[in-house]
């Protein structure tokens, strides 16, 4: 079985996030970038399936600027067999991403595609679902447990009320939640060897997809600074403030 894993290069979850000066986006200069944590989990799951003898090849794919090669190399160091970069300097919307991934899926014919449920930069949480629709494949999103028996994939997923179990026959799409697994660290020798694994770069314009954004971002503003708290001296004062200042009761 061939598995395709989509990985996105995002601002590191522990980096300080700043809105840029003209309020059109997030400052990415001099900010540490790394693999989207949900995608690390997606790759880890693929690696475990390969270690169980259930997968024969893992392809990591990213869509983004040329620097996204670093993220793909990290995927190769962790154990993916080869990598594909669809190169673009544009900020693409989920539908376009799904369409590009669809193109590659038709070419590579994986039986399973694993994606993070969302990227931590814009939290869209749409690409996996849209890709499933374009491919007309079954999907199991927010996976917290994956079991594969022959062609049958069983996925436990986290929903508001608890856990739901879904099953589908391959091919299909899984998007991963936080508690699916704990990603491994790459081993030193594998980091050094990652460069010798194949990494194909495809220009995004060559895939015949209209990349034009449908949405316009008007402005991005940081949340207001939280004002200092106050100490109330009685329950009556608290009720008064909740009713007349906060207007919540």
């Amino acid at each position: 079985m061939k598995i395709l894993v989509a990985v996105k290069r995002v601002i590191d979850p522990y980096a300080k996030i700043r809105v840029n000066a003209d309020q059109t986006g997030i400052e990415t200069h001099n900010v540490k970038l790394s693999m989207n944590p949900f995608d690390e989990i997606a790759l880890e799951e693929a690696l475990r399936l390969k270690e169980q003898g259930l997968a024969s090849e893992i392809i990591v794919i990213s869509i983004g600027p040329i620097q996204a090669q670093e993220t793909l190399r990290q995927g190769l160091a962790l154990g993916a067999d080869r990598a594909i970069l669809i190169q673009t300097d544009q900020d693409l919307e989920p539908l376009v991403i799904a369409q590009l991934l669809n193109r590659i899926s038709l070419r590579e014919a994986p039986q399973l595609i694993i994606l993070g449920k969302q990227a931590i930069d814009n939290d869209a949480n749409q690409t996996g679902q849209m890709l499933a629709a374009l491919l007309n494949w079954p999907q199991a999103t927010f996976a917290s447990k994956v079991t594969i028996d022959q062609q049958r994939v069983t996925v436990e997923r986290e929903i508001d009320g608890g856990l739901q179990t879904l099953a589908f026959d391959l091919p299909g799409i899984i998007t991963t939640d936080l508690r699916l697994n704990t990603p491994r660290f790459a081993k030193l020798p594998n980091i050094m060897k990652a460069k010798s694994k194949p990494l194909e770069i495809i220009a995004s314009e060559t895939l015949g997809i209209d990349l034009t954004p449908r949405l316009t971002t008007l402005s991005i503003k940081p949340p207001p600074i939280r004002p200092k708290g106050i100490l109330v001296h009685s329950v009556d004062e608290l009720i008064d403030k909740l009713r007349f200042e906060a207007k919540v009761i």
Partner: protein
Amino acid sequence: MDFTLSDEQRALTEMVEQFTEAEITPNAKDWDEQHHFPIATLRKAADLGLAAMYVKPELGGSGLSRLEAALVFEKLAMGCVSTTAYLSIHNMVTWMIGHYGSSTLHEKYLSHLASMQWTASYCLTESNAGSDAASLITSARRDGDCYIINGAKAFISGATQSHVYAVMVRTGELGPKGISCILVDKDTPGLSFGKLEQKLGWHSQPTAMVFFENCRVPISQLLGVENSGFSIALTALNGGRVNIAACSLGGASACLKASLAYVQERSQFGKNLSQFQHIQFTLATMATQLDAARLMVYRAAAAIDNQDTPLVTQCAMAKKFATDVCFEIANQALQLHGGYGYLKDYPIERFLRDLRVHQILEGTNEIMQTIIAKRLLEA
């Protein structure tokens, strides 16, 4: 001169940084307080290839350069200087076995040392042979196909925990030309340990004397050729000095990082400490000194990689400069933290205690000056 790291070098430092934050930083305080030797964590590091870093891949090592190893030690030491320093000693001995050992010794040791199922210690110093190491008197006498070792080694890092000891012994004439390096296993009859030393820092690894009383060791345990041990010891120490200096860089980086956070949250006289010019200048000086030390350490590591002729001088200079400056940075960080810096609730005092010994071991910083001056005057 190229000062940028390669993609692989950046990737490996990032990986080690993440490993440090996940596995080392949260535990370092406990290891220090409980004098705990964290073998489980060390084995996790070994699994990532951190225990035989600059041993050749065909011998089961990670095949990194010394510069890359220095980058790794620096990142690890940001979590715990003491544990990283022990790992650096283990790496040094593992390299010695890889570089000088016979294929029999490779077979016997390398895979176990690379996984840290076995750990290693380096035994040069004696009670009366410290800075004057060539005056050592622990002896190995040939008896058939064995050596019989008698004597005692002092200040041995990892003693009691390590499985194998690379011991410098006298096999020939007085002075540096009569010394050999022999590997002695922990379970060899006649090998015993002194009481655990009570130290200022380096609490996550034991230090003790190692005694040899008619210790019978097969001659196949000899590293390199007989009476070449002192040159092995000194060659290993060049790398050891760079490694210890790199550990100092990590400790100082952690102190600087903690100070930057502290001065931005602590207010006095109605403003953040970071708004006082004196604090700003202190931080700027700390960062500049750290960067200068870093450049010297990286250059010395690269000198070993390229076998540049002045490598002995460069390693000595880097060791002296980096360990002095990094201790001073920790001291400044403690001052910036005020009374809190003196408390064990903050990590600064642990870094300060752990970094202090770097000015003493792997050749004191005074010996470093002797080495530098000797070569200056010879030129």
